[in-house]
């Protein structure tokens, strides 16, 4: 048998086109990878990581386990489409082999097997495969039905808002929605004409037989297969340019990630894997406070990645992000959304002139001496209670402290990085690193989570342990170097983005608060904590908009009926104090007030 019929042409052409484009994309991206990344691939290829990646592909690309965690129904929808389709292909393959033995069958022979061999049932006449294939088709159809339902009522899937799509997406999506109903119709008509079919197609076929005359059935037969093939063909052609490219991008991404490739402050070829791995599922929209509090609908990660992918990224979209990390926390593909957003900003002109920040040369406003350095941070000079409390704690603990910036310091560089001026930021990094080294400190304590993150991630401070003051105080209490008394107040704690999601510090502040009084948690807490809106990462929203975000998150803290709101970041402190209309306290303050001298 040749396994050829004219109706298969759209499928064959579409399929070949798709594989050609995908292959081209993959090879271009891989070839353009920087040498460091290519070395990483070579280095890690024959390791256990590769096997782990295989398992992850099954779990995430097929089963979509992470989406199940967001919402079970949404997870089921994605799983039934992906895993169901995958099984249809695999089981279809086995079916063909089971009937025809080990002979070469062209692709369309597998896909349109029912057309070429309408009556099978060779295996003991029990129609095992037909029932199995029908069951899988039903599974995929359930997924399609849920997808339709999601368009109408997204809330049922745990999503308040779904993604607005581009033209290619709409074409591909429409084709995708038609593929499986078309297959059902085509196979049912085949069963009606030739008999056979499983519990689904067979039954529908039987019903069609009683409903329509033989002439009608025969005249619908070929068009139905044409339609099925065309839907597939259209989908395949649109696919590499649509969001469905994620199917073929997530798989290599999972491997590359396991081989330790990651995006950096500068754009590189690897970013394409991350950008095109976005399926535009839209899970990132709901956690975004710019959406929830300000009604902005064009800047969430899904739109940012879309705009970047199609080269239509505006400065405004790139800059309009709090980088709070709430969406990244939920992204089922695990895309490094913050880093990509950052390096999108970094593409803009970056090195103004050589003499930039020359004025830093020789500047040293530090005071004191000791192996422990304290870097309050720029913002902390506007919350002097934090600085004073830290000084008090240091003195009670008998710590010799070198104060890096008590009389004015140099910015840590992160604000420049957040604005895309990575090269300029390096000068701050170099300045501060040199300062810390010259004063020979072993421990660097900072009160600003923004500084903390950059010290840990972008500074090379080997031999110097970098701590946030909440970690430092936690250690002092644990080791008995300071003792605190318990007071009767209740404290609601706000997790600063950069401290919590940014540096993974959740427990230390809570232990410290627990030592002083009773801890209360707002509705959104820990990984899920809301952003205060004052983030330096966003330069688009104005003061009133910042305030609205702060108000909504502060309302949750106030709703705990706590006596005092506590946080651990000067910027959050300012934002919450403003929204609450009364001062907010820092972890350091409540400790300093209750420290036993």
């Amino acid at each position, binding site marked *: 048998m040749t396994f050829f019929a004219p109706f298969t042409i759209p499928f064959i052409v579409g399929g070949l086109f798709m594989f050609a484009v995908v292959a081209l994309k993959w090879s271009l991206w891989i070839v353009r990878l920087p040498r460091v990344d290519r070395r990483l691939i070579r280095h890690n290829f024959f390791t256990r990581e590769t096997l782990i990646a295989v398992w992850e592909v099954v779990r995430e690309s097929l089963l979509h386990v992470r989406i199940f965690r967001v919402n079970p129904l949404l997870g089921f929808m994605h799983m039934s489409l992906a895993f169901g389709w995958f099984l249809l292909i695999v089981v279809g393959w086995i079916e063909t082999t089971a009937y025809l033995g080990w002979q070469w069958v062209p692709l369309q022979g597998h896909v349109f097997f029912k057309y070429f061999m309408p009556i099978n049932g060779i295996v003991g006449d029990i129609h095992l495969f037909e029932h199995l294939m029908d069951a899988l088709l039903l599974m995929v159809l359930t997924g399609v039905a849920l997808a339709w339902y999601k368009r109408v009522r997204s809330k049922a899937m745990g999503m308040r808002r779904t993604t607005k799509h581009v033209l290619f997406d709409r074409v591909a999506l429409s084709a995708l929605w038609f593929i499986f109903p078309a297959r059902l119709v085509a196979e049912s008509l085949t069963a009606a004409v030739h008999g056979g079919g499983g519990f689904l197609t067979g039954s529908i076929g039987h019903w069609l037989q009683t409903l329509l005359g033989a002439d009608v059935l025969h005249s619908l037969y070929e068009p139905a297969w044409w339609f099925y093939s065309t839907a597939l063909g259209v989908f395949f052609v649109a696919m590499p340019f649509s969001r469905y490219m994620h199917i073929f991008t997530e798989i290599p991404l999972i491997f590359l990630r396991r081989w330790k490739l990651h995006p950096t402050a500068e754009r590189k070829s690897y970013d394409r894997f991350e950008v095109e791995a976005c399926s535009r599922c839209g899970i990132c929209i709901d956690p975004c406070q710019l959406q929830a509090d300000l009604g902005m609908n064009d800047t969430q990660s899904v739109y940012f990645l879309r705009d970047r992918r199609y080269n239509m990224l505006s400065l405004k979209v790139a800059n309009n992000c709090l980088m709070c990390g709430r969406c990244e926390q939920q992204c089922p593909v695990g895309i490094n959304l913050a880093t990509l957003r950052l390096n999108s900003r970094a593409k803009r002109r970056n090195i103004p002139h050589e003499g930039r920040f020359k004025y830093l040369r020789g500047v040293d406003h530090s005071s004191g001496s000791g192996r422990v350095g304290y870097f309050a941070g720029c913002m902390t*000079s*506007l*919350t*002097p*209670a934090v600085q*004073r409390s830290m000084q008090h704690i240091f003195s009670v603990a008998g710590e010799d402290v070198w104060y890096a910036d008590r009389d004015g310091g140099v910015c840590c560089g992160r604000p420049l990085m957040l604005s895309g001026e990575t090269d300029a930021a390096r000068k701050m990094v170099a300045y501060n690193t040199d300062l810390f080294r010259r004063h020979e400190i072993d421990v660097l304590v900072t009160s600003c989570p923004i500084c903390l993150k950059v010290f840990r991630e972008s500074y090379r401070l080997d031999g110097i342990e970098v701590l946030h003051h909440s970690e430092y105080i936690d250690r002092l209490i644990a080791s008995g170097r300071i003792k605190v008394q318990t007071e009767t107040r209740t404290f609601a704690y706000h997790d600063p983005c950069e401290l919590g999601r940014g540096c993974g510090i959740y427990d230390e502040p809570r232990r410290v608060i627990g030592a002083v009084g009773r801890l209360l948690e707002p509705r959104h807490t820990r990984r899920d904590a809301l952003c205060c809106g004052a983030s330096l990462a966003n330069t688009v929203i104005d*003061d009133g908009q910042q*305030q609205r975000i702060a108000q909504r998150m502060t309302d949750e803290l106030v709703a705990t009926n706590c006596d005092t709101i506590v946080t651990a970041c000067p910027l959050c*402190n*300012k934002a919450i*104090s*403003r929204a609450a*209309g*009364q*001062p907010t306290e820092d972890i350091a303050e409540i400790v300093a007030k209750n420290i036993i001298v």
Partner: protein
Amino acid sequence: MAKRVVIVGGGAAGMQTALELKSRGIEPVIVERDIELGGKARGWHKLFPSFTPAGDIMRPLADRIRAERIRCFYGQEVTAISSDGVMLRSGERMPADAVVIATGFTLFDAHRKQEYGYGLYDNVITSVDLERMMNSGKVLLADGSEPRRIAILHCVGSRDEKVCQKHCSKVCCITGVKQAIELKEMFPTADVFNFYMDIRMFGPGYEELYREAQQRYNVHFVRGRISEAAETINKRIQIKAEDTLTGRPLKMTVDMLVLLVGMSANYENEALASTAGLSLAPNGYFKANDSFLGVVRSEREGIFFAGAATAPKSLADTLAEAALTASMVDEYLKNRYNEK
């Protein structure tokens, strides 16, 4: 029978309104949250621009209230207002033929500007603290010594969107000038620096007083808002500002920093307004019916305003306005009961 008017608040505005109403044959009843009359002006030392002791104005008012046997309820909080009476926290209803809202303002809580270190540094005080110190006859530093260098910062909690106070509190500029002069009289050798964004001398005699402060008392005026304050080891206050007239950053160490705290709308205004069906201005004060002829009328018939409940006002303005309120209430009652 005399018509009864409930006046919410027994400060300058409430007392003056009560007296004016009484003289028109109307029966005023004052409901005061505090345990005595006088409001914010009680405890104030001297008044601008004439340095009249506040007691000279406030004491006679309270005396006359007593002499006229005007009924006052103390320690009572009003929780709801309508044109025919008010509801008290105790659950008691107090019927009336008209109601005057004379609830005044709340002083801005200087703790909210943490960068100035109020409550944190011993020698950072507010303008209100300074009046109290002057009342007690002693203006001294925390260690009991005399200040030799004093900074007075204007606009703390006024014209500051970072603490949601967009409005100008109107009286701080002239208060700052007045206090600077008083400090100079107390400590002639001390240096006094007023840090301001704009100097707004709107009242009669104010500009003259400003000039006197500059020329006769040698008070220094620096055009720049202090951005932050820090405490030195010997408890002095180090301040940072920009001297905007020279365009250079300015740093100086002073013995005492006085924060001229502004006037905020009362927190309770929102709840009260909603019970009365009134609306508030964006800054949280009660909204007057219009800016010209209806400044003491509310959007509801039978509910009136007096004093700083509608906007920051000086004591002189408040007293003048209270007389207007009484006249408007009188007119309203006459129209209403003649019609029947």
